[in-house]
């Protein structure tokens, strides 16, 4: 550090001027007087402007309280641009908003027009302490370390190191509370052999003969109704939801297993294999299933294979048949994990 440097100035400058270019390092220019500084009438006008902002603000704030009490909150009014709005909400909100805005606007107008606006330079001192002060602090540290005797008292040193190294251990163990490991739950759904397919939201069994070609049904397993705990129910629903469509059997190019359809009725997972959005955006002419989240597209007439988009895996198919009364049932659970890929799946 150069000691002859004036510490109030940036390096390379002397007496407020850059030594190379000769340009002032803090250019200020001539102080410009404002209209209100010269003309008392202009100052009076600015004063009135500020006062009226504060005055209107006071009226707005009182008005907000009055309209809260007076304006009916069942009345709807038509406001241009805004449309039909609740009169109470609109009047209270507008008046209160205007009220607080005008306090701020008045304060800024006051500062800009009437308060002094002379340019000033605020001088700052050097951030570095004097060399003697720094040497003194270093000396205090050294003396303190010597007084603890940590150099000689080996047993204290070692036990302290041991305690400090164990200190993070409880924190790591407590991470266990983030929940049990998923185990096989990511691979399994509540679908199983003989579970009836029921309509989502209305939970009716589905007769195969009721489905004409082109029909789409959003379905869930019947045993979802047995999962009573709400969180568990949502978890199972999130994995087990399927969509059911009836294709012309002649249109089916391939399936994930021999005879997994029932006379052209195919059941596929509803959970996108990309990041797990529920999808039932089924286009009956192309047999495409489009995920609205990232436009992954699956062909339900061709094993649910990906035909477009970021999904890396086909939609898992659920093998189905009918029971003795003609209602659709699953012949087994899903043969591969549904939903997005996960770490252990490989």
């Amino acid at each position: 550090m150069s000691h002859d440097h004036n510490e109030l100035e940036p390096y390379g400058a002397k007496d407020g001027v850059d030594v190379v270019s000769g340009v002032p390092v803090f250019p200020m220019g001539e102080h410009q007087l404002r209209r209100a500084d010269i003309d008392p009438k202009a100052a009076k006008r600015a004063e009135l402007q500020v006062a009226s902002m504060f005055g209107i603000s006071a009226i707005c704030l009182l008005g907000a309280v009055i309209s809260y009490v007076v304006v009916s909150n069942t009345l709807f009014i038509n406001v241009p641009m805004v449309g039909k709005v609740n009169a109470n909400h609109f009047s209270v909100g507008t008046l209160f908003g205007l009220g607080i805005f005008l306090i701020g606007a008045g304060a800024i107008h006051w500062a800009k027009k009437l308060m002094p606006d002379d340019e000033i330079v605020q001088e700052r001192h050097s951030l570095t302490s004097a060399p003697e002060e720094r040497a003194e602090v270093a000396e205090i540290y050294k003396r303190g370390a010597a007084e603890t005797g940590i150099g000689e008292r080996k047993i204290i040193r070692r036990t302290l190191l041991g305690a400090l190294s164990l200190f993070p251990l409880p924190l790591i163990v407590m991470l266990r509370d983030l929940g049990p490991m998923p185990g096989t739950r990511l691979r399994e759904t509540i679908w199983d052999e003989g579970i009836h397919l029921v309509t989502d939201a209305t939970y009716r069994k589905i007769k195969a003969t009721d489905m004409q070609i082109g029909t789409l049904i959003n379905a869930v397993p019947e045993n979802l109704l047995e999962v009573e705990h709400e969180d568990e129910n949502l978890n199972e629903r999130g994995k087990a939801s399927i969509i059911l469509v009836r294709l012309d059997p002649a249109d089916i190019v391939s399936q994930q297993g021999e005879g997994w359809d029932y006379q052209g009725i195919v059941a596929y997972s509803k959970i996108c294999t990309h990041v797990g959005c529920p999808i039932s955006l089924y286009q009956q002419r192309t047999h495409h299933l489009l995920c609205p989240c990232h436009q992954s597209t699956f062909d339900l007439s061709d094993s649910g294979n990906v035909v477009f988009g970021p999904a890396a895996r086909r939609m898992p198919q659920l093998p189905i048949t009918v029971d003795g009364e003609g209602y659709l049932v699953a012949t087994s659970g899903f043969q591969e994990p549904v939903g997005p890929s996960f770490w252990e799946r490989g």
Partner: protein
Amino acid sequence: MALSRRHPAVLATVIGVALGTMGIAYAAVDSSTKPKTTLVSQTQVEEGKALFIEGCSSCHGLAGQGTSDGPSLIGVGAASVDFQVSTGRMPGVGPGIQAPKKKAIYNETEIAALAAYVATLGPGPAIPTAELLDTSGAELALGGELFRTNCAQCHGVSGRGGALSEGGVAPSLMDSDAKNIYQAMISGPQNMPVFSDTTLPVEDKQAIIAYIEQLQKGENPGGNGLGRLGPVTEGLFIWVVGLGALLAVAIWIGAKAK
């Protein structure tokens, strides 16, 4: 093309339509909810056949059997014809991803005749009766749940429509009447899947229609719904108008007073 055509059998047509109307009225009064065939006169069918051969057969074939330019209409039913023709989707203007909605070319009488004729080609869903479209007893909350389960994925939660693949769109439902919503569900027009009365019962359909009618009323207690498109328009508004206003205030604060 057919707007001002004069057919020799005008009187017979009028009688036919009158009979048809009587049939629909009878069906509306009847308490059974089973879809039933309306009383159709032979004249109406002939009138419909004439219109069909003139306006539809170049794509759908002289007997409605379908060609490389248009699908078979055997078994699509009267509901499908009424939906496609009354919304102007048919006759189509040309091949494409989907036939857009436009002004209807045929009038009500002609549509009824076309529907009556196509219904004779094979059994298919009939035009819903007034009784089926009565939503006065419908359960609105159930309708909302069913709409979100079965319709919202394509038509959007607010029924404003949405994008499909390859340039197709699911249309907005904001101008659709109860009859056409019902007909679309039972006939599955274009890329829409079928929601027949056997898989989605009549009372569920009525609940869905009642819910859509509620959406159509479009009450926005918070003011301008910005098209009810959600974060797209709302985000655009707040980035342009909201941040714009903040910028203007910031510039005013920073500007030097004169």
